[in-house]
């Protein structure tokens, strides 16, 4: 299962869900579902999110069980 730190990094960048959604070209609902872990985004969207939040994609998304790696 894909885990993420989207909510935390979004807050750190002072973005609302709507602002982040606009930056990456998706709906607010998509950001909400990713944050809740109910939707795994595509590689393209994951890269866009990492870019918008100015972080590495591995910092934003990781596989469950890979936390220590």
């Amino acid at each position, binding site marked *: 299962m894909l885990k993420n730190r989207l909510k935390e990094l979004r807050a750190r960048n002072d973005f609302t869900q709507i602002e982040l959604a606009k930056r990456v*070209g*998706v*709906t607010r*609902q*998509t950001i*909400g*579902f*990713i944050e809740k872990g*109910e*939707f795994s*985004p*595509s590689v393209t*969207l994951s890269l866009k999110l990492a870019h918008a939040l100015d972080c590495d994609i591995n910092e934003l998304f990781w596989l469950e069980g890979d936390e220590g790696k």
Partner: protein
Amino acid sequence: MKKDMRVSYPLWQMISIIFLMAFVFLIGFSSEFKTFKDGGFEFIVEWNNIEKFVVSIVLLLFILFLALFNWNVVKHNRSMPMHKINLFTLKPQEYMEDDELFQELTKRATKKVYSYYTLAIPILAGIYVASPFGRTEMIIGFLLLAVGQYFIYYKNIKKYITEDE
């Protein structure tokens, strides 16, 4: 999302199918179909006064429903010009493909509908083969199947939309 008619569109479809069922019922059980040896056929519909009254009421309700439906479509298209409901395309209007999440939700709901038909069609065929149902009951059975389809789709999409609100 609450104002998005694409979410409630399956409900409108269900109501229109129920109207269709009412018409099939009213015509089917009051009609006679005759074929002639020298070719041709005759289709006769006979209603008594009570039936005529019921047909008039159903027709009136259907016209009111159509007016309300059209008014809602116009309202939706004004408030969501990027996601207009177009009644003149073959694409089901309840599909939401705004972005990859909505494509995924639409896919999940349509998969449930597909599973439903995989099971429901053979069951219905089995029931029809083993029972003395007439043409009208069979048509109503198919229409009930369609109501079920829209119900499953709506229930699934609504679940995600409600979760988000």
